[in-house]
């Protein structure tokens, strides 16, 4: 039980996807200008990633491995994820058009969020079982959402800061992300007992 807790905690804080593993940065930089959109994007990613981790585990274990075609993993995973994303997109477009417009180009780009492929691949590399895969996927995407929302909070405030002109916008956001990443290094070593 505690080991599952560690999987989640580790994925959320210690090895935060964005700030420590450096995955999923494009949406992290792109959708963090407003708190609202950040929350929406976080939720969408969490949904896709958790589902993607489960599905890819099943496909890996019940299709690829028995057939001995592990080299198809990248292909199989990404195609699955792309399909999940597209279905999600269609559903959101139908049920919440405003969210859809706000998330704009980023919804299809969830597919190209490295984290969404990276985490299932890491699941394989770390030999997670089905539950661990799901938890790891969930934890990672919660970590992603957390970082994204906090980052958006800071960026909303930064809007009013008297930042030197060349640094206005993305550049200072990068520096901020760097400092956040530095702060998250404080968690280093917390997962060593597991």
């Amino acid at each position: 039980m505690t080991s599952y807790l560690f999987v989640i905690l580790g994925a959320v804080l210690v090895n935060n996807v964005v700030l420590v593993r450096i995955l999923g940065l494009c949406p992290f930089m792109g959708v963090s200008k407003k708190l609202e959109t950040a929350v929406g994007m976080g939720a969408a990613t969490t949904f896709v990633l958790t589902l993607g981790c489960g599905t890819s585990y099943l496909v890996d274990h019940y299709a690829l491995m028995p057939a001995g075609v592990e080299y198809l993993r990248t292909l199989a995973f990404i195609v699955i994820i792309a399909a999940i994303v597209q279905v999600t997109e269609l559903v959101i477009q139908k049920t919440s058009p405003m969210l859809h417009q706000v998330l704009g180009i980023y919804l299809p780009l969830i597919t190209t969020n490295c984290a969404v492929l990276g985490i299932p691949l890491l699941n394989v590399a770390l030999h997670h079982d089905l539950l661990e895969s799901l938890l790891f996927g969930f934890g990672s995407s919660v970590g992603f959402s957390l970082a994204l929302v906090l980052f958006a909070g800071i960026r909303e405030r930064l809007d009013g800061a008297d930042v030197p002109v060349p640094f206005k916008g993305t550049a200072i956001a990068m520096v901020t992300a760097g400092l956040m990443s530095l702060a998250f290094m404080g968690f280093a070593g917390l997962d060593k007992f597991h």
Partner: protein
Amino acid sequence: MDLKAYRDIAWNGIWKQNTGVVQILGLCPILAISTSIVNAVSLGLATILVMAMSNLVIAALRNFIPYEIRIPVFILIIAALTTVVDLAFNAYLHELYLVLGIFIPLIVTNCIVLARVEAFAAKNEPIGSTIDGIAMGIGLTLVLAVLGAIRELIGSGTLLSGIEMLFPGAEAIHVFGDDYPGFLIAILPPGAFFALGCLIAGRNWLEARKLARARMNPPAITDTPAEA
């Protein structure tokens, strides 16, 4: 399409729409793999390869791909080509393959690859698309290389460490001598963010200066009177 159009596409990819510092896409490999020049450039080359091939293939096949499933098909193609590159690295540049780790398969999800395929290759003919892919890739590689250089230099005081993985026998350059204590942050994730932030700011500054210059002395009228 004439030569000028190709040149524009190239310039667009390398500077005007540079993925790393302008479009702010494809950041993960840029930040994660730019710990040294060699790593950075190797991944850059792999990406160029994938981008060129996928742009070419998709531009060529664009009329056969139904709209509803374009994204899965694009990704399928990119993933297949990436796997090819991945297998090739594994076979022939094994050490580098180990260093780059999951970032080779992750070329698939490099936003910029899909973004270019969607934005360009799906709408243009193959040659232009290939050039676009290469140019975008070069733009990415340039950012990677510059970042790699900065981080490697500040972080460990060397340049081109790990070059022996590509060219056995070659050696890294110790720029600051052996006593340099190294500034580890540069190599760690925070350093990656700082360095890219500075790079973006630097480009902003250059562009702003260019603009200011252009404002100060508007381009001289070049066409000479016919009679003269």
